[in-house]
């Protein structure tokens, strides 16, 4: 029988000398924790190996409360080393250890600048992020006087395809009102193959738009086969179909690698989720590609395995161990058993259904003495018949 996946149905009672009886089939309220695939462990233990001197703070870090040096007592250090015999430390070229930075505390949220950057996510959507620093706001307030407070923060999107943009000559533009406190936004441009610029600024009730900053120019990618043909190099319809079947269009572009069935084509306007590439339905899950391994690599609970609501797995193993003269030889049912240097031995088997006899025999190095030991073991679950 297999080790697992079977629910033992019947449990014999009682145990006699030399017989192992398994009591099984009891109801379990919760899945046995040890058998469950758990989420991964936390990433790392910080092993700080020696007292440290505090890390010098740079200017940016000065606003952050100073970290007390994470000194560790020498005793702990010893332990940390001792429980890790099997992996290798590389020699450090110097003797002072500095703890890992507190990267969350030191991480800069903003850079005290006024800037807006534009990126194209796909043929239809743009992403922009910006920062407007205090100086710029103060200057704007000064310039606009009283009307500043009635203005609203706005991103103006310009289609600048085929123009050298001077602020007033775009093909068209539209405004997106930004919620207070936002510093990035997804913008539905809608048009593939066009060039775009955005500005972050203040839109006043009288219709005036006063920008803080203008972005770089970006082009949205194409989303279909080009209309431009090359006489000498024209493609045939048949080949077109073969190279790029209809069902792969748009959705195909996306359903390539890494796609998950049923998640395509969500729609949304606000930050974080947006999509206009409607799938044609029935998009197929194709794993791999685009770092598909990364998710598979490391994730016992990644959701790719269907987790049943409840289950029970039971395994039984038989451990036989003992000791004899260090130079003796030992057999188990006639097969040699390897002794540790001190004469101890131990083996472990899966215990199958049924009755088993195990005979352990030791013979001294000179062959004069032998000792034998016989064990009868019965495993009975009512299965495997």
């Amino acid at each position, binding site marked *: 029988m297999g080790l697992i996946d079977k629910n033992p149905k019947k449990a014999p009672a009682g145990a006699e000398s030399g017989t192992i009886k398994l009591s099984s089939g009891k109801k379990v309220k919760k899945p046995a924790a040890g058998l469950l695939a758990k989420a991964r462990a936390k990433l790392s233990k910080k092993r700080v190996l020696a007292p440290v001197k505090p890390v010098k703070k740079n200017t940016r870090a000065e606003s952050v409360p100073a970290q007390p040096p994470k000194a560790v007592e020498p005793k702990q250090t010893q332990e940390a080393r001792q429980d890790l015999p099997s992996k290798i430390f*590389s020699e450090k070229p110097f003797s002072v250890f500095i703890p890992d930075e507190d990267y969350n505390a030191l991480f800069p949220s903003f850079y005290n600048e006024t800037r807006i950057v534009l990126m194209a996510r796909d043929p239809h959507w743009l992403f922009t992020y910006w920062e407007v620093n205090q100086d710029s706001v103060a200057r704007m307030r000064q310039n606009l006087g009283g009307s500043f407070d009635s203005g609203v923060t706005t991103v103006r999107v310009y289609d600048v395809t085929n123009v050298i943009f001077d602020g007033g000559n775009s093909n068209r533009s539209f405004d997106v009102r930004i919620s207070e406190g936002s510093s990035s936004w997804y913008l539905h441009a809608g048009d593939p193959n066009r060039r775009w610029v955005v500005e972050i600024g203040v839109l006043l009730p009288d219709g005036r738009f006063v920008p803080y900053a203008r972005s770089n120019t970006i082009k949205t990618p194409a989303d279909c086969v080009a209309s431009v043909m090359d006489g000498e190099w024209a493609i045939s319809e048949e080949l077109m179909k073969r190279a790029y079947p209809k069902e792969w269009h748009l959705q195909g572009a996306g359903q390539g690698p890494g796609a998950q069935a049923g998640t395509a084509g969500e729609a949304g306007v606000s930050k974080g989720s947006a999509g206009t590439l409607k799938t044609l339905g029935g998009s197929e899950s194709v794993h791999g590609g685009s770092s598909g391994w990364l998710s598979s690599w490391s994730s016992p609970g990644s959701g790719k395995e269907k987790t049943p609501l409840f289950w029970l797995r039971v395994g039984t193993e038989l451990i036989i161990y003992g000791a004899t003269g260090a130079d003796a030889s030992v057999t188990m049912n006639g097969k040699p058993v390897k002794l540790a240097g001190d004469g101890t031995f131990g083996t472990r088997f899966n215990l199958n259904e049924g009755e088993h006899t195990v005979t352990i025999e030791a013979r001294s190095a000179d062959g004069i003495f032998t000792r034998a030991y016989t064990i009868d073991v019965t495993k009975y679950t009512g299965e495997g018949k």
Partner: protein
Amino acid sequence: MKGYLAVVLHAHLPYVRHPEHADFLEEDWLYEAIFETYIPLLLVYERLIRDGVDFRVTMSLTPPLLSMLADPLLQDRALLYVEKLIDLTAKEKRRTEYQPEFRKTAEMYNWKFVEARDYFLSYGKNLVNAFRKIQDAGKLEIITCCATHGYLPLMINQKAINAQIKVAVDTHEKHLGRKPNGIWLAECAYFPGVDYTLKDHGIKFFFVDTHGVMYGVPRPKYGIFAPVFCPSGVAAFGRDVESSKQVWSAKEGYPGDTNYRDFYRDVGFDLEYEYIKPYINSNGTRTFTGVKYYKITGETVHKEPYDPQVALDRSAEHAGNFLFNRGKQIEWLASGMDRKPLIISPYDAELYGHWWYEGPDFLNFLFRKMHYDQDVIKMITPSEYLAEYPVNQVSAPCESSWGYKGYHEVWLEGGNDWVYRHLHKAADRMCELAEKFTSPADIEKRALNQAARELLLAQSSDWAFIMKTGTNVNYAVRRTKEHIVRFTRLYDSLNGGKIDQTYLSEIEYKDNIFPDIDYKVYR
């Protein structure tokens, strides 16, 4: 002979190396890849050569992967990793002695891990040498990738993009003894214009997803069955849909066959805790060990025992089926083309062996059958194809990637879009430093070079990808923030004229990728 097939395997892992920790979970990615994918593939190649089977394969070995494979600390740790597995599988042979349905599999694992360890040792623990040998035999074309798998279309700063390519080419040449002819753009992510940067560094071709070529301007005459030249003159090869689907597709793809090994049922989760404890995570958390006894079986919780022989036979059948379909495809294509059609079949290398356990067997059978059983189709490398057909249509490929939905959405969405503010700022600052420090003192030079390393490491597309997929997110966030914090400190201290030497040494020790980097690459 009517046409060609180019199998392209993209081998990449992010740079994960934590000398400061004795045991670091994410480092296992490398060890698993070495013993489950890279060595099994290399063994296939070696035996094909030994048996006189002519074959061609193209692999991208990314600069982070090359750097890790050549790193002595990681090599030693990889050896310990496999020794542990040999130890475990030896015990497993005993434990399953009276379970014929598992015993055979236990023996196979033990034997395979011993074989892999011996192979690893035979190359002095440095697999770069093994790949190089296959390359020098003319069977394997090794191409490069962006220096740290940076996602170029979202990088914006042209000098930063240039640095990703320049550092990649230099690293490639250092490890493999020659400059790469081609590149696998990270995530197949292309934007118009990047081909000029590739050209500047002597790169002659790259790959795009199907629509990258199909949406090109003007329309490509041969679709994806011949390369096109970008306006820069660099060639773009498009991914074939049909052959991709046969392997990638979860529904129809070969790896989903019920006889193949199930990835999830692993003794790391199944066996008694005290017994398995030495082989799981050192903090006691159960994790994958790579020893798995069940087959996929079907969409059921109940799994049947894995039979290596049955699985091997299936992989041979699948190889035959793949070849049959490519033959049909080529016959059809050849009838309408005035040159020999080329099918490009790219995959993540780690799919083979790690994920699809029988994948290397599949390739082995495919290469052998292709050599012995037919003469419609021949294997080729992109460089060889370009040598045979130096004249190609000029068509500007479309901005694209091979990610979900075909553009940048995987790497630019709610869970990861925050990184770009910092990546862009750091890139701009790096260029600023490179301009400012024309003749730096030694310590400044060290700080400048280290700043370049921190920027490059922060730019790995892997972090954004992990944030998107939702597993190991903490690690990806940590890596992004750490590198940005380290970069920012260096930037501030260089500008402040005061460099903390101890701190610099510390991060040089931790983030030691690209020892020969020169910060002037950002000029």
